[in-house]
């Protein structure tokens, strides 16, 4: 299933926009827009999402090209980490008070 909002019925396809706000930070999803092709999608993304120096780099991805997890199966799909709190440092309490641990 593609990202929400995409429709084959529209003249221009939907693109999802990701912006790197500054060096050292990963690209983050900021929103979407319509554009006829990738070149114009990048250009429109600049105008729409970086009018105030919000970014140093932009990615655009056709919404149709995004595959999402099955929304109906969200419970079961993400169940496996539940009950596995031994994966978190806070599970190990005996070392409390010991320095540098």
């Amino acid at each position, binding site marked *: 299933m593609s990202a929400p*909002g995409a429709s084959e019925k529209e003249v221009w396809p939907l693109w999802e926009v990701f912006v790197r706000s500054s060096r050292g930070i990963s690209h983050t999803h900021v929103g979407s827009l319509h554009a006829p092709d990738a070149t114009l999608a990048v250009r429109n993304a600049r105008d729409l999402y970086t009018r105030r120096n919000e970014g140093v780099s932009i990615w655009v991805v056709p919404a149709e090209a995004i595959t999402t997890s099955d929304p109906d199966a969200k419970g079961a799909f993400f169940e496996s980490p539940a009950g596995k709190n031994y994966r978190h440092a806070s599970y190990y309490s005996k070392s409390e008070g010991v320095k540098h641990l």
Partner: protein
Amino acid sequence: MTIPPVPYDIAPSPAAGLSPEEQQFNDLIAADSRIEPRDWMPEAYRKTLIRQISQHAHSEIIGMQPEGNWITRAPSLKRKAILLAKVQDEAGHGLYLYSAAQTLGITRDEMTDALIAGKARYSSIFNYPSPTWADMGSIGWLVDGAAICNQVPLCRASYGPYGRAMVRICKEESFHQRQGFEILLELMNGTDDQRAMAQESVNRWYWPALQMFGPPDDDSPNSAQSMKWNIKRFSNDELRQRFVGMLVPQAEVLGVTLPDPDLRWNEEKGVYDMGEIDWTEFHEVLQGRGPANARRLQRRRDAHENGRWVREAAAAYARKQAHASTGTALTETAVA
């Protein structure tokens, strides 16, 4: 692989109580969490949001016109650049909101078609003309001020994409109100004629700006449900009251008079008492009989129609490029 869409219209069977999906929706709302696009949601919630978000988007788009009117006549290069930036922001705000509405299953084209066919509503404030430069000040100070007052609580709206769009909008909107205030302040520090122009403009925009919060609470049928769903956080009258409370000291700084002879501080209640709002005017404008309704819609329709060849040419070019890069033959049907 095609995964079927979420069946959001499953009705809970009365015998078995709530469906698990509806129970989950109710739990999320009760926990003041967020609903995301692919979650199950009541059909009425979806419809309310589509209506509200698309009307909001239309307001931003139509809202470009009263100020676009002054771009070529702004009194200095600096003012022209500021006005351009502001109008560009409004286009951007419209686009953020259209995108948010699209996640609910309506297309951009459907929303645009509804607007230009005159079937969709937008804020009645944009159906007033902007004949003087002082109106650029009043629109920023009063209209954007009222909008911010309305919009800040919407950043916490229960529908995730709407709240996120509103956060971005609110960040950008604060410059709009300040630049409007500055325009009025400059006029108020100017000649007698300039002061009169500022006051006359405030007189025209004050009441319509107060109407932007919508009808009084006892005449606002959808408000209660929207508040239960955490879409709306404060009632129309509460927000209006809060706005007037902020305006009074600002008007003092400007030296303008707010055109309400009944406006006075109520020591007992701790709020300002206000005069009666002319709701007949509000409903008239909403029904399409305001001073500029026809002009605004015609302008939007013309822009859409005149831009059609550009949209189609760009789409055709994109298809042609895609075919060229994949090496497939471009047939007549492919470009049709």
